[in-house]
């Protein structure tokens, strides 16, 4: 074989070698080289002369690019288990479409409208959304890749029971769906209000120099209340989108209600939500106003507790009955 052909063949083999796992490189390259030489010999016998560079290049071209040839020897690799793809897509759909978009809309709508240049603020908002979306897709993908890498088994997929499948959504579910959607909107609005109202605030300036000084319990309650409100909104959204997950939702709501009751109990026990200062009131007047204000907060918290207990009872009843609405039939008899 001419020296130029040997060089061409060596370059080809070297290029294939680059893509191969180290442990198998020598073995695969030796076999591949032998196969190519056999092909060259056969071609030369057919043509009756030594192959020139173009003819050898043609054989190599027919064999395929080095990367393609090497890829055949590599084990099949995947990032996510195909069996988990439906769950992966569902998680991304929920987070990107049904959590981020409404959340961004609610959180940024106010600032966008209040900004001197709303167009610019909207652009910033969109850029932030895209950035958050990329990060989320990345994080979710990493989590699912890790689940696949460490072969995490989902018992639910193997030990499923047809009797425990969620019921078919019924006629009443449409109404329930709108209720959940309203709950989600209210929850996000309440969370945004709570977050903006008390974010790093220790007092409020009222009219005529009067100041409302928040007690330490307000600061302690800030994150738990915000977290529970957002969690509640999130599960309202999930319930609106997937009404068939009623049982899961009921359990989660009971948990959220229990959390809310704990917060209310702690707050009621702590008392002294705010002090009033300034405004030129007499000491007796101030004491009356503080007592009135704290009393109103007490009553509000008690009302919240009553509503929460009512909600928990309702959810517990739904859970025990297992079928809040009349199921629609998929198979109809003719």
């Amino acid at each position, binding site marked *: 074989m001419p020296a130029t052909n040997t060089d061409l063949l060596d370059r080809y083999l070297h290029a294939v070698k680059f893509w191969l796992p180290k442990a*198998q490189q020598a073995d*695969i390259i*030796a076999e591949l080289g*032998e*196969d190519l*030489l056999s092909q060259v010999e056969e071609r030369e016998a057919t043509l009756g002369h030594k192959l020139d560079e173009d003819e050898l290049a043609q054989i190599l071209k027919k*064999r*395929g690019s080095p990367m*393609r040839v090497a890829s*055949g020897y590599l084990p099949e690799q995947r990032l996510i288990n195909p069996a988990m793809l439906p769950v992966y897509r569902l998680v991304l759909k929920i987070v990107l479409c049904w959590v981020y978009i409404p959340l961004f809309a609610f959180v940024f709508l106010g600032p966008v409208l209040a900004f001197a240049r709303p167009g610019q603020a909207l652009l910033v908002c969109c850029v932030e959304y895209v950035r958050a979306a990329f990060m989320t897709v990345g994080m979710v993908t990493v989590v699912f890749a890790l689940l696949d890498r460490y072969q995490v088994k989902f018992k639910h997929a193997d030990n499923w029971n047809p009797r425990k499948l969620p019921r078919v959504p019924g006629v009443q579910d449409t109404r329930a769906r709108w209720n959940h959607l309203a709950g989600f909107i209210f929850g996000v609005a309440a969370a945004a209000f709570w977050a903006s109202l008390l974010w790093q605030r220790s007092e409020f300036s009222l009219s005529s120099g009067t100041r409302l000084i928040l007690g330490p319990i307000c600061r302690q309650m800030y994150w738990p209340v915000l977290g529970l409100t957002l969690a509640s909104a999130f599960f309202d959204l999930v319930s609106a989108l997937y009404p068939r997950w009623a049982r899961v939702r009921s359990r989660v709501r009971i948990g959220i209600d229990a959390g809310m009751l704990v917060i209310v109990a702690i707050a009621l026990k702590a008392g002294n939500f705010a002090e009033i200062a300034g405004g030129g009131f007499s000491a007796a007047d101030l004491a009356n106003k503080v007592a009135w204000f704290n009393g109103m907060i007490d009553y509000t918290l008690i009302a919240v507790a009553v509503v929460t207990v009512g909600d928990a009872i309702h959810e517990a009843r739904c859970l025990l009955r297992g079928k809040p609405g009349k199921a629609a039939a998929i198979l109809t008899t003719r």
Partner: protein
Amino acid sequence: MHTNGANSELFDNLRLELRRGCLVVAVLAQLHTEHYGYALRKALADQGLAIDENTLYPLLRRLESQGLLASQWREEEKRNKRFYRLSPLGKEVLRDLLAEWHQMNSALKQILGDRGPASASESGSQSKKGK
């Protein structure tokens, strides 16, 4: 027959799926006698089963790693060549695979009856019309 691009791609994919399992059986069966890669490919092609080199060599390595083939490097015609042959486990697996293949083949024969591919596709289109 497959002039349409989309149809051709669909047919190629289905053909690939159909061939995948058959190639394993053919390679295992051919390696009852010892062969090196190039000779094996020629032998299969001569019997009407052409197989791409980029499919054959990775397949040989996979079958060897699964214990179905055994291989050794040996010099022949002044060149080192890797010879493959069926391992004892490979013989057992091939026997089972052939039994399975015979069963599928006879079932397919029964399903198709005396019809050739043309009449089979004809009856397929008739059943579509029926729907």
